């Protein structure tokens, strides 16, 4: 399934992401920032925790559905070892909370409403990612 060129899949997938974050805004008035939603499971007031958990459950159920309709989504594993994976996870967790967002909150939602903070944050994490990959080569 979905055998069109990569960039077409990327565009269609991106549009579906755009639809998802738009529904979140229209229905619930919220920004779909994944790192903030995850962190809030532990830090938000009690009434604000359930929906966060259900959103994350939706992500995982979406993943289970992908396994059936588009298993290729989970290919492309990197040869990185366990140590690097742990360090990367720690940096992503720490950095996204310190920087108040990740690819979804800053990169998609923030840029779409032309937030100067999000535009800058996205530029910075793109540059940091590009430098990291360049140094690893």
């Amino acid at each position, binding site marked *: 399934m979905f055998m069109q060129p*990569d960039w077409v899949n990327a565009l269609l997938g991106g549009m579906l992401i755009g639809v998802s974050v738009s*529904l979140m805004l229209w229905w619930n008035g919220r920004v779909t920032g994944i790192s903030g939603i995850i962190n809030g499971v532990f830090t938000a007031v009690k009434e604000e925790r359930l929906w966060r958990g259900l959103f994350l459950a939706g992500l995982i159920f979406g993943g289970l559905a992908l396994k059936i309709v588009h298993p290729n989504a989970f290919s492309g594993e990197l040869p990185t070892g366990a140590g690097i994976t742990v*360090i990367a996870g720690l940096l992503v*967790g720490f950095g996204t909370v310190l920087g108040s967002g990740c690819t979804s909150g800053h990169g*998609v939602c923030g840029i779409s409403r032309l937030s100067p*903070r999000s535009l800058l944050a996205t530029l*910075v994490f793109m540059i940091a990612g590009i430098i990291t990959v360049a140094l690893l080569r």
Partner: protein
Amino acid sequence: MKQNFTVFIVGFLFAMGLGLSGMTQPQKVVGFLDLWGNWDPSLMFVMIGAIGVHFIAYKIIRKRITPLWSEEWHVPIKKDITPALISGAFIFGIGWGLAGFCPGPAVVSLASFQVKPILFVVSMLLGMFLFRIIDQKLKIKK
């Protein structure tokens, strides 16, 4: 209740979008960041698609007085550029480049039952936890 059900739907659709787009494939993500190597520009279209849709939808939706199922908007209004914003984004970017995972795709990839996404997500939760401990003592975010 309605709100809780709808966020599940949003999460589900979001995951399908990520999976279709290629964002859940770490090799593609690293290929996209590999400007001086074997650059794979296809993931740029994820941003174009997502921002293209949401840029327009945002303007239309914000014409409403309130969201459909909430009394008020919860959109961030902060404008100040802080050292925390920049250093946090930079630290995040390093981790993203190392593993090829950002938070959303990592959580979606838990469904693959592969070891790396699980290890990554557990470490990410630990990183968030470490942040809270350090921030409590040093107030690094202010």
